[in-house]
């Protein structure tokens, strides 16, 4: 029997995974910090791993498993996570041009967070954080 996939609160589409591979070739290992607020708020911002200094005020929401790449950590401010904790996040990509310092903006593509409600089973497995 194959091992059960561990339950994660984050996922990545194949198109976004391909963009992550391209960006890794240029910039090395990557991370996300999910933004909030004005303009491009609520966009997932992609940086070289360690560029954005996380702290106790952030939560590691999960790690994206992209074959061939080191796990890509997805962070969010703790106070924001309080309002997002019941949702599952999938990092996707759309044509567009984000602001902010996210690495993909020169490519003409833009990471986008798609959300759905966590199932009861997922919520129980993830537990309180």
């Amino acid at each position, binding site marked *: 029997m194959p091992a059960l996939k561990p339950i994660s609160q984050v996922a990545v589409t194949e198109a976004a995974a391909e963009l992550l591979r391209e960006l890794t070739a240029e910039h090395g290992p990557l991370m996300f910090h999910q933004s909030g607020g004005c303009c491009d708020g609520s966009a997932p911002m992609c940086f070289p791993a360690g560029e954005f200094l996380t702290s106790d005020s952030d939560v590691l929401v999960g790690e994206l498993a992209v074959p061939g790449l080191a796990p890509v950590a997805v962070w969010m401010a703790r106070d924001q996570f309080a309002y997002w904790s019941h949702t599952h996040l999938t990092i996707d990509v759309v044509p567009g041009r984000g602001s*902010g*310092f996210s690495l993909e903006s020169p490519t003409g593509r833009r990471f986008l967070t798609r959300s759905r409600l966590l199932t009861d089973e997922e919520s129980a497995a993830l537990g309180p954080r």
Partner: protein
Amino acid sequence: MTIFQPPTTTFKARYENWIGGAWVPPVRGQYFENPTPVTGQVFCEVARGTAEDIELALDAAHAAAPAWGRTAPAARALVLTKIADRIAENLELLAVAESWENGKPVRETLAADIPLAVDHLRYYAGAIRAQEGGLSQIDDDTVAYHFNEPLGVVGQIIPWNFPLLMAIWKLAPALAAGNAVVLKPAEQTPATVLVLMELIADLLPPGVVNVVNGFGVEAGKPLASSSRIRKISFTGETTTGRLIMQYASGNLIPVTLELGGKSPNLFFADVAAEQDAFYDKALEGFAMFALNQGEVCTCPSRALIQAPIYDRLLSDGLERVRAMRQGNPLDTDTMVGAQASNDQLEKILSYIDIGQAEGAKVLAGGERVDLGGDLSGGYYVAPTVFEGDNSMRIFQEEIFGPVLAVTRFEDFEDGIAIANDTLYGLGAGVWSRDGSNAYRAGRAIQAGRVWTNCYHAYPAHAAFGGYKNSGFGRETHQMALQHYQQTKNLLVSYAPKAQGFF
């Protein structure tokens, strides 16, 4: 009704960077395409600036800053008023260009964006002339003089929702205070600031304002992290705001941040006591979420209605929403235009999805709109109204689209608690016929601007800025001058004798 033609002759086919009062090609020779949200078609190319271009701009700014800082306040004020006059003389040209660049209705740029830019320049021209330093008598023989000195060279990163007005909000106090500026427009709206620079080229000494376009990671980051700026000002979202503070901490420089909000708009029960002009005004306040397609940091995106009038006000408010005319932004009858970019459109649609998944009810809109013809390629979203609960994500996150989330409150305490149950605190609205009730509500809401019986007014001389996660620092008020100044204290002794220590 007037329908303006696309401003094809206003824009050049290609823009270089504006450095030292001249067009300077980007060092790496790269450009990016600039589409209009009205149709999705590219209308010009703009320099894709990089760290090398930022350095050139900083060279020009550092060359210009000392003389500009020593220029008499009256002379600097005169330059600002001349810029204001030049903008006013070209109001229609700039308004149409801004509508084409951003997708916003031209009736807004004609009536608000551009006239406000003119007024803010005139305001800071007056404010710098009226500003006084300080004098403190320490004792009989000792006096402390306090001078307001410019910082020198400052960096400013401008958002795409009001490209010209936000540039002027930041430029006017910085220039009035005697600083030279390197300005990075948003990559979604890079061109109208350059149209403005060319219009006013003869009014500003070369190098006092320099504009470098490009992507955030390639041009914004080298500016924000440069050791050659003495201050950085940014309007945008929280992650980039934190990153800018992080870079600023490396250089020990101050920052001004405006990071958005999720502004509550409270309607107390007495609003509907009469079916009169005031009630009509309040319904307009309900509909204000759609101004600029919701792409306003202070968008009143949460309507909180007191229970006794909930059904009635919501029903009348929805009628106002259904009457909104969405269409060609260049048509003066259009009230709701296009979202500024495709990724913005996609983000708004993703929020409409999660709102429905969380159980919120769509009462109006809820979809992308195809306006047909050339406009089919544009980014249009129907004004959308959700009914739900304040814990839902559509009540907590700034969607930056024409999306309103409505819920009810029981009494004063309940209303204030819901209003303050948010990470942000930029704007808020309070509607009540009872002045003392409105006053108490305004003081109890944790936000930097509480519109009381009005909304979306942005006059100069009323301070604008955030509480909580919405950032810090104030704009559109003379106190912003101090964000671009440092205090020089001369501590002077007039005593004839030694202190007696040595």
